């Protein structure tokens, strides 16, 4: 549904994206990893139509992205700045639902349900500035989930939460992707996480970024925080992604080489 071809972007004379090509199928969850500052957030903003890339093509459902596509939600890396401090958490989550033509009660219910999903059932009336960073981050995740977008872009969405919550949220995202057919692009700097949640892991090079590798993670859809991470395949893939992020070349994992040859 999402197809990116030779995406180039420069801020002034500073070239950040050096020709990124990538496609994501409907209902797929693709993790994107890459070194800090390589242009991951820039990639995401281009997809969302928030910046106009210097070159290349992005199509969504066959149509080129010119302005912000309908039916898209973003969890911004800078989650605290993306919440509105004059509104309670519940109202923050409910606000975008106006676009869905829901009435006040429906919005309220959807917001409470989404907050419940991220473990904040009791925090709906709190204001963002009364919450910890991890709680704010979960509110912004809840806002995106409540919106039920067809494409969900997440920029390091679990960076500020504790380990246990993080695992819960990873499973929540997997669940949402499976049961609501949402296509997800998830940026992370956690290699382990990229493999655990991804149907595919896309590794970007240092800036100007290009796609260094595009690995299919053949671990199936039902994943388990403990069992999956112990699988030989998981351990191998994790090492592979780690090597690639560090700038090494593809090892001999059959899955990955086959993908690279296919491309």
């Amino acid at each position, binding site marked *: 549904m999402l197809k990116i071809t030779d995406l180039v972007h420069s801020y002034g004379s500073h070239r950040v994206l050096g020709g990124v090509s990538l496609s994501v199928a409907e209902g797929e969850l693709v993790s994107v990893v890459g070194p800090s500052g390589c242009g991951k957030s820039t990639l995401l903003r281009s997809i969302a139509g928030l910046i106009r890339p210097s070159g290349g093509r992005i199509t969504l459902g066959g149509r080129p992205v010119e302005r912000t596509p309908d039916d*898209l939600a*973003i969890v911004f890396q800078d989650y605290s*700045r*993306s919440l509105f401090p*004059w509104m309670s958490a519940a109202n923050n989550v409910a606000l975008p639902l106006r676009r869905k033509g829901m009435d006040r009660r429906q919005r309220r219910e959807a917001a409470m349900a989404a907050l419940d999903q991220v473990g904040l059932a009791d925090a709906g009336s709190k204001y963002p*500035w009364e919450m910890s960073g991890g709680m704010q981050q979960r509110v912004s995740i809840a806002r995106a989930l409540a919106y039920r977008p067809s494409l969900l872009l997440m920029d390091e969405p679990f960076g500020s939460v504790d380990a246990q919550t993080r695992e819960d949220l990873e499973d929540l995202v997997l669940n949402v992707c499976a049961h609501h057919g949402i296509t997800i692009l998830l940026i992370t700097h956690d290699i382990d996480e990229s493999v655990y949640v991804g149907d595919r892991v896309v590794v970007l090079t240092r800036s100007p970024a290009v796609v260094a590798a595009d690995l299919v993670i053949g671990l199936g859809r039902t994943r388990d925080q403990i069992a999956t991470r112990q699988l030989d395949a998981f351990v191998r893939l994790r090492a592979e992604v780690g090597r690639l992020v560090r700038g090494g070349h593809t090892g001999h994992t059959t899955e990955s080489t086959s993908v690279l040859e296919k491309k």
Partner: protein
Amino acid sequence: MDYARVLRGAAGVAGFLAVAELVGLSGLVDDRFLPRMSTVLGAATGLVADPEFLADAGATLTVWALGLLLTVALAVSAGLLLGTLPRAEAATRPLIEFLRPIPSVAVIPLAILLFSDNLHLKLAVIVYAASWPVLINTIYGLKDVDPLAKETLRSFGFGPVSVLARVALPSAAPFIATGIRVASGIAVILAISAELMAGGSEGVGIYITEAASGGRVDLMLAATLWAGLFGLVADAVMVAAERRLFRWHHVRTGGAR
């Protein structure tokens, strides 16, 4: 509010009143020119029951309120326009920078020439003088809106008008409110100045003029005292309202009080 601060403020005022009274008692000044503080306070208390003064106070209050209302309507709209259209803002900035520092009282003689209706005259000078802080703060507040907050709403598919109404305006609101509070003080000053300079049939300024021509300095000062007190109370009410409404802003900007 801080209890100790209030106490210190009250002590300061009491001290001033006492010194003023002592100066009066000492006979250093002729109390036909400067009545004793206790006389002034007594006269001020008397004014509360003086129907003539109350009618004048009501008239000034009405002009103040109308003027402030007009100011807010005009200056906030203009500020929204200039704050969202950078080119228009750049084009009008030199004009604003030139007009703003002109002492507003200086425009009253011009207004006297331009307006035959006394109410229109007063409203015009109030709106002219009080608009600046509201206008400037609205423009500044809109510039200060976090771009990421706007992008967030855009990313959910909201158009520019929704972004303005749902993000830009609420996030600029604390700045606008401060502008309105400053404007309120200016409006009091301009209302009374216009009454003093342009005359008319009623208003605190008229009362003061008449007291002066009757040689009643005590009544002059008493009326002035009430005008000052009104400005003070209006300001305090607005500060309290701002704290309540924009708690999110004060918490974030570290305004601990």
